[in-house]
C-alpha cells in the first residue's frame, strides 16, 4: 500500500505518577518520582520493599459486570479510553471493523494467594505432593474466572470489547519491549492496509509477591529501601538495579489520510520501527550491545533518517549496571560521543520499569517531548559513570528544538525494539 503513512492522534496514560497524559507530563517535567514503599501487600520481610505503584487503582465501568478483572485489563481500559477520547473518537461513527488492538500485555504471578489452600492440602502428608488432594481442594477453593481474567490476552479482549474494535486483535509479550513492539506491529498493519486505526501500546503490573521475589532472586532489582525516590537512577554510577513499576500507555495510531479526512488533531507521525534479538543469554543483555545497535539502525533505515536527524532518545535506561552501559555504547557507535549524540533520558528514573507497558509509556513521552519541544529529565543522575558519558538530561527538564525522537526498548530475554516519531507540522 504505497502512500500510506501512520500518525498518532490520541494518547492515554496510567502510571505511578497518576492517571492521564496531562498529569503525567507535568510530573515528568517536574522530575517527580512515583517510587515508594510497597502498599499493595505486606512486603515488610522482603529484600526489596519498594516499587512504583499506581495509587489508587482507577475504577472502570467493567467493574460492574466483570468479576476479577485483571489489573492489566484495568490499566488498558483506562489508558485506552483516554486515548480514544483524546483522538476525538468518542461517539464517532468510525468503521469499527477497521480498528485494531495491538497490546504488549503482561500479568504478574498473583495466583499464589488463591492457590495456597490447595497447595497446603497437597502437602498435608509430608514432603511428597499429593496431587489428587490438590485437585480436590482446588475444586472447592478456586475462582476460575479469576484465573481466566489473568490471561495475557484478556486486556486486548476487554479493550476491544469496550470500544467495539473488531479489527485485528493481537497481544504480545516480549518482556520489557512488548509495549513498543505493539506500536511497531500496529504501524506495520496500518501501513499495509489491514486497519485504518489501532489502539496500540502496553499494559502491565508485576507488583505482586511472586514476581517481586523472582526478580529479587535474579538480582535485577534495586534494594535501596531507605530512599525509594532515589532508587531508580539510570546511567548514574551508583545505579544498582531497576524498580518495578506498573501501568499502561496506549495511543491511537491512524492512517494519515484517514485522520485528515475526519479532521483529527495529529500529534506526531510514526516513521520507523526496528526489531532484533540479542542471541546471548536469557538473563543478560549482550554486553557488546550489538542487538540494541542493530535495532536502532533498522529503525533509522525504516524511517529513512540519518543519525543526525534524531534530536532526542528516550532510553531503555533501566538503572541496571549492564543495560545502561551497553545502551550507552550502542548509542555512541551510531550517533557518536558526547557533543555529537543527541540528548538521552530515561523516564524510568521517575516511574520505574513498567515491563510490558514501559515502551509504550516511553513512546508517549517522546511524542509529548516533540509536541512541547521539551525533554523530560533523568532524575537521580548525580554521579557520572565513565562508562556512561552521554548527555542524559540530568535532573531537570530542558527546552530543545528537534524534529525526531527515538524510543528504545530492550526485553529481558534479548528482544530489542526501537521506534521513531516525527514532530507533527501541526
Amino acid at each position, binding site marked *: 500500500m504505497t502512500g500510506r503513512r501512520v500518525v498518532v492522534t490520541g494518547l492515554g496514560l496510567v502510571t505511578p505518577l497518576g492517571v492521564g497524559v496531562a498529569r503525567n507530563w507535568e510530573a515528568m517535567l517536574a522530575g517527580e518520582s512515583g517510587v515508594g514503599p510497597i502498599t499493595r501487600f505486606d512486603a515488610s520481610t522482603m529484600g526489596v520493599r519498594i516499587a512504583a505503584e499506581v495509587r489508587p487503582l482507577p475504577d472502570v465501568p467493567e467493574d460492574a459486570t466483570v468479576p476479577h478483572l485483571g489489573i492489566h485489563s484495568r490499566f488498558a481500559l483506562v489508558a485506552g479510553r483516554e486515548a480514544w477520547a483524546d483522538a476525538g473518537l468518542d461517539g464517532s461513527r468510525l468503521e469499527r471493523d477497521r480498528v485494531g488492538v495491538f497490546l504488549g500485555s503482561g500479568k504478574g504471578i498473583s495466583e499464589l494467594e488463591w492457590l495456597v489452600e490447595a497447595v497446603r492440602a497437597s502437602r498435608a502428608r509430608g514432603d511428597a505432593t499429593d496431587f489428587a488432594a490438590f*485437585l480436590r481442594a482446588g475444586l472447592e477453593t478456586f475462582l476460575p474466572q479469576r484465573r481466566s481474567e489473568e490471561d495475557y490476552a484478556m486486556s486486548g479482549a476487554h479493550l476491544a470489547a469496550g470500544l467495539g474494535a473488531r479489527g485485528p486483535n493481537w497481544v*504480545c509479550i516480549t518482556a520489557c519491549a512488548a509495549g513498543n513492539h505493539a506500536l511497531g506491529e500496529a504501524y506495520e498493519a496500518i501501513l499495509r492496509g489491514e486497519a485504518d486505526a489501532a489502539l496500540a501500546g502496553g499494559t502491565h503490573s508485576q507488583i505482586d509477591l511472586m514476581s517481586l521475589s523472582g526478580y529479587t532472586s535474579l538480582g535485577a532489582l534495586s534494594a535501596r529501601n531507605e530512599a525509594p525516590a532515589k532508587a531508580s537512577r539510570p546511567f548514574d554510577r551508583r545505579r544498582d538495579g531497576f524498580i518495578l513499576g506498573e501501568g499502561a500507555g496506549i495511543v491511537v495510531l491512524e492512517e494519515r489520510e484517514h485522520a485528515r479526512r475526519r479532521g483529527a488533531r495529529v500529534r506526531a507521525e510514526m516513521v520507523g520501527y526496528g526489531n532484533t534479538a540479542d542471541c*546471548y543469554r536469557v538473563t543478560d543483555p549482550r554486553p557488546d550491545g550489538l542487538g540494541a545497535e542493530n535495532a536502532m539502525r533498522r529503525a533509522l533505515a525504516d524511517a529513512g533518517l540519518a543519525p543526525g536527524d534524531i534530536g532526542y532518545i528516550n532510553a531503555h535506561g533501566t538503572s541496571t549496571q549492564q543495560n545502561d552501559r551497553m545502551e550507552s555504547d550502542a548509542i555512541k557507535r551510531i550517533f557518536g560521543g558526547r557533543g555529537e549524540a543527541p540528548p538521552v533520558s530515561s523516564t524510568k528514573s521517575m516511574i520505574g520499569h513498567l515491563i510490558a507497558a514501559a515502551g509504550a509509556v516511553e513512546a508517549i513521552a517522546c511524542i509529548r517531548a516533540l509536541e512541547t519541544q521539551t525533554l523530560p529529565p533523568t532524575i537521580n543522575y548525580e554521579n557520572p559513570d565513565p562508562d556512561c558519558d552521554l548527555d542524559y538530561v540530568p535532573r531537570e527538564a530542558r527546552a530543545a528544538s528537534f524534529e525526531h525522537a527515538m524510543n528504545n526498548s530492550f526485553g529481558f530475554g534479548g528482544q530489542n525494539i526501537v521506534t521513531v516519531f516525527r514532530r507533527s507540522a501541526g
Partner: protein
Amino acid sequence: MGRVVVTGFGAVAPNGLDAESFWKATVEGRSGVAPIESFDVGGFPVRVAGEVRGFDARAYVSNPKSLKVMGKNIRFGVAAAHMAMENAGLKDAPPDPTRFGVTMGSGIVPTDIEEIGDAVVASLDEAGKFDIRRFGEEGQKRLFPLWLLKHLPNMVAAHISILHNAQGPNNTITTACSASTQAIGEAFRILARGDADVMLAGGSDSRIDPLSLVAYTLLGAVSVAPRPPEKVSRPFDRDRDGFVLGEGAAVVVLETEEHARRRGAGILAEVVGYGSSFDAYGITKPEPEGRGAAQAMERTLRDARMAPAEIDYISAHGTSTLLNDKMETLAVKTVFGEAARKVPLSSIKSMIGHLIGAAGAVEFLVSVLAIRDGVIPPTINLEHPDPDCDLDYVPNAARRLRVRAALSNSFGFGGQNAALIVREYAP
C-alpha cells in the same frame, strides 16, 4: 511484496514425538488422548488429556544448565524448532543471522505446584494459614532462584533465537487460542515486507498440570464425560461436551521464495493469506452467529486474493465444545455459501486435544502436509451427526484428495480470531 514459502517443519505432539510420526498417526486416526499420567488425578472428574509421553529434551538441548530454566512448554518449542531447522536443511547451513527471526505463540505458564510446595509449607503460621511475612523470611528461600525464567512466556522464542543464532525480528504472541496462528501470520508479514529472509514460526504450550486442570474444569470448558479416553474429544459430534487439554509444539520454517530458491531448498507450500478479527461480544463465549470468525476467514481470503471455492480443505478450530463447533459451522456457511457443502473440514483436536497457544501452529502444519501428501486427516469420534453441524467433517477416516489450498482457523477464548491460507507452490 515478496512471496513466502514453507521449507521445513518440526513438531512434538501427544500422538507423535516428531512431525512425521505425528502426521502418520493423525492420518491413521490414532488418538493421543489417554489417562493423565504425569500426576495422580485420583477421583477428579477429568482424567484424560493429550499428554506428550516419552519425550526427552536432552536430545535437543545439550547444556544441562539451560534445561533447568526450561519448563515443559519451552522444551517442546525448542525441540520442534530444532527439528524444523534440520528438516529445512538449515542446521548445517544457517542463514544470515541478522536476516533470521523467530515468532512463537505462547501463553500463561502455570505455577508448578510441586515446585512451590516447600515455599508454601515454610510460610504457614501456627494455625496453618499462609503468612506473607514468613514467605519473605523463610518461604521464598525454598524456591529455585531462577524459577521466574520458566514463567516468562517470551522465553521460548528467546531460547530458540539463542540456540540458532537468529538475531532478526523476535516475538512472542499470547492471544490465547489464536496465538500461534498469529505468530505464523506475523512471520509471513515480516518476510513479505522484507524484514527477514527466514523465520522460525509456531507455538508451544502445555496446560496439563493440576492448576490448569482445576481451572478449566471449573470453567466448564473441558469434557467430564465418562468415556474411553480416545473417545472424549469429538468435535462436531452431537454428543460433544467440551475439549480435552493437550500439549506440544509445532514450528515451521518460513522463507522468502527468493531465499529458498537461491539455496535450493525444497519448497513444501506457499503462505498466501492471513487475517485476524475480534468478536466484540461476550468475552468468554464465541459470538453465536460466528460473525468474528467469518470476518477472520473473509479477511484471510481477501488477503490471499482467493475465492472460497478455491479452498480445498479447512483445518478447523473444532474444539469439541457445543458452542464453538456450531458457531464455526455457521461461520463457514456464511463465508463459503453454496461451496460450504463441498469443502471438507476436519479437526485434529479429535486426536490430540486442544494445545491452546500451540494449537494453531499444529493445525497449520496439518494444512501444509495435507497439500504435500494429498491426504486429509479425519475428525475421529464423529459418530452421531448434529443437525447444527451438517458439513463434511471427514468423519473417522482420512481421505485422499489433492489439496491445492487450505485454510486454517483459530478462534480465541476472549473472542480473538485468526486464520491462515497455505497453497500449493507453483514457481
